[in-house]
């Protein structure tokens, strides 16, 4: 393998290259750091770049490997993650002013499991304040910019993760998805992103936003890379009693399987309504590609998805407001205007309405699963269009802000309410060269099927291999 710029490798390939000593961890780390430093003024993807510590850790990884000691499948692989994963001894801002100097005293289980596999910390990635926003604006640390077009948003709330993975500033990154916060930046930035089933990956040590809806998952350059990360993180955790005790499938094996003979459902309504022309065309192209790969396509008639979106808003707004109530009383001036406005929305929902929304979750999931009987997954756009501009979406706490947010997230929130897995994959580009992603929606704990279909699609296309020019 000839490697002129290691940062351009996929996660799986760089892990192999380090393991076989084709390149060193230092070379991989230096390559990511060079790109991160170069792009920071234009992208603002990193919250902190920790060059000296990263290179020291990389040197230690190389020395260990020279002694024949490997910590795991990601030995010496440098990564950075959304700045909401607690990492003992490190500042974790959660994208906020309130936690600007807060030092974590524990390490998130998901992060610890990646560390145990041998990763090197590059620093931390930007995010929307307290993960409460789908666009990528941040009044405290500045907006993150889309590497495909710096005037456009990245999507959020995992804004730095989307931008950094797309621009090859890290090989992969953790995000979190409560209302679309992995799938939206994956879609807007042209990378792969996996929203996991509620209960698959521990949330212990991950900043909470909504305990019923929060999920941990990766953004990466390929579906295979998402599989690798998810397989390392998934599984029961005594620190998060909501995690499932079921065994973790071999997700990497799932990516090597073919989707031939599988059945994918296309919603008759809602997810296909009011799409931008480019998105509508890319949906049809995606369907055609899957058909060419031997996937059977059928239409599915889903239950009222608008009701799911409304129920999701009840749960999210109430739980977020409850979580933040103390700071809303003591430090309201320290929130950005839009985040405070959205937290205040939760005050208008009564306890009875909130519990009703939670009680309906079971029947709503059962109705959805009945509607998709006979399919392996459902295919839908992630959002009605490609990334809007930063300027046009910089609406603060204006009266129209929530309506705009709801429009952008209306295809992602139903999936969060139902707790289902969703895999966002790059599926094409608009005429102005902005990425468009599609999401594959699966059954509970059936990430493996999504990974099989997604990997099959990526073997037939090259959208995921395209890389934006570094400004």
């Amino acid at each position: 393998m000839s490697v002129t710029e290691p940062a351009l490798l996929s996660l799986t390939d760089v892990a192999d290259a380090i393991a076989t000593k084709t390149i060193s961890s230092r070379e991989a780390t230096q390559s990511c750091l060079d790109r991160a430093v170069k792009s920071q003024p234009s992208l603002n993807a990193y919250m902190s770049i920790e060059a000296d510590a990263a290179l020291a850790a990389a040197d230690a990884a190389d020395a260990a490997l020279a002694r024949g000691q490997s910590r795991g499948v990601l030995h010496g692989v440098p990564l950075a993650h959304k700045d909401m994963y607690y990492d003992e001894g490190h500042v974790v801002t959660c994208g906020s002013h309130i936690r600007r100097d807060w030092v974590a005293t524990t390490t998130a289980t998901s992060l610890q499991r990646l560390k145990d596999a041998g990763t090197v910390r590059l620093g931390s990635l930007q995010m929307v304040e307290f993960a409460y926003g789908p666009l990528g604006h941040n009044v405290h640390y500045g907006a993150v910019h889309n590497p495909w077009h710096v005037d456009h948003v990245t999507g959020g709330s995992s804004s730095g993760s989307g931008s950094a993975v797309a621009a090859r500033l890290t090989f992969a990154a953790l995000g979190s998805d409560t209302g679309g916060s992995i799938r939206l930046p994956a879609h807007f930035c042209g990378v792969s992103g996996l929203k996991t089933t509620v209960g698959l990956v521990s949330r212990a040590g991950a900043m909470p936003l909504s305990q019923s809806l929060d999920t941990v998952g990766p953004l990466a350059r390929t579906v295979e890379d998402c599989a690798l990360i998810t397989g390392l993180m998934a599984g029961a955790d005594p620190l998060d009693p909501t995690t499932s005790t079921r065994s973790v499938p071999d997700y990497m094996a799932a990516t090597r399987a073919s989707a031939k003979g599988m059945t994918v459902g296309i919603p008759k309504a809602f997810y296909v309504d009011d799409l931008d022309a480019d998105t509508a065309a890319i949906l049809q192209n995606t369907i055609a590609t899957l058909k060419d790969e031997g996937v059977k396509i059928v239409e599915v008639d889903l239950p009222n998805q608008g009701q799911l979106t409304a129920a999701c808003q009840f749960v999210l707004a109430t739980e977020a407001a409850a979580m933040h109530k103390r700071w809303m009383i003591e430090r309201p001036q320290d929130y950005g205007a839009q985040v405070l406005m959205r937290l205040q929305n939760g005050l208008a929902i009564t306890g009875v309405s909130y519990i009703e929304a939670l009680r309906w979750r079971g029947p709503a999931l059962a109705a959805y699963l009945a509607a998709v009987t006979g399919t392996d997954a459902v295919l839908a756009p992630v959002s009605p269009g490609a990334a809007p501009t930063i300027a046009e979406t910089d609406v603060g706490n204006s009266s129209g802000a929530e309506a705009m947010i709801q429009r952008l997230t209306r295809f992602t929130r139903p999936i969060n309410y139902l707790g289902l897995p969703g895999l966002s994959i790059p599926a094409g580009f608009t005429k102005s060269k902005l990425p468009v992603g599609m999401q594959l929606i699966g059954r509970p704990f059936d990430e493996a099927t999504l990974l099989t279909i997604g990997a099959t699609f990526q073997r037939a296309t090259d959208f995921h291999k395209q890389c934006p020019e570094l400004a």
Partner: protein
Amino acid sequence: MTKPTAKQIKALTEVSGLPASDEVAERIATSIGPAFEGFAAVAGTLPFDLEPATFLAVQNTKAAK
């Protein structure tokens, strides 16, 4: 279920311990109103013996294709 008015929201925020101004209450009403409309067909219709944990039961029993 009907969406709350700004006046009702103002009262709710006072009860919650985080009183909102008239302007903020109006903004909350505009923001959250569509969710109340969207959930209206479900609200008040759920059967008696249904608790939130039903979700976990469905999630685990319906996982197979």
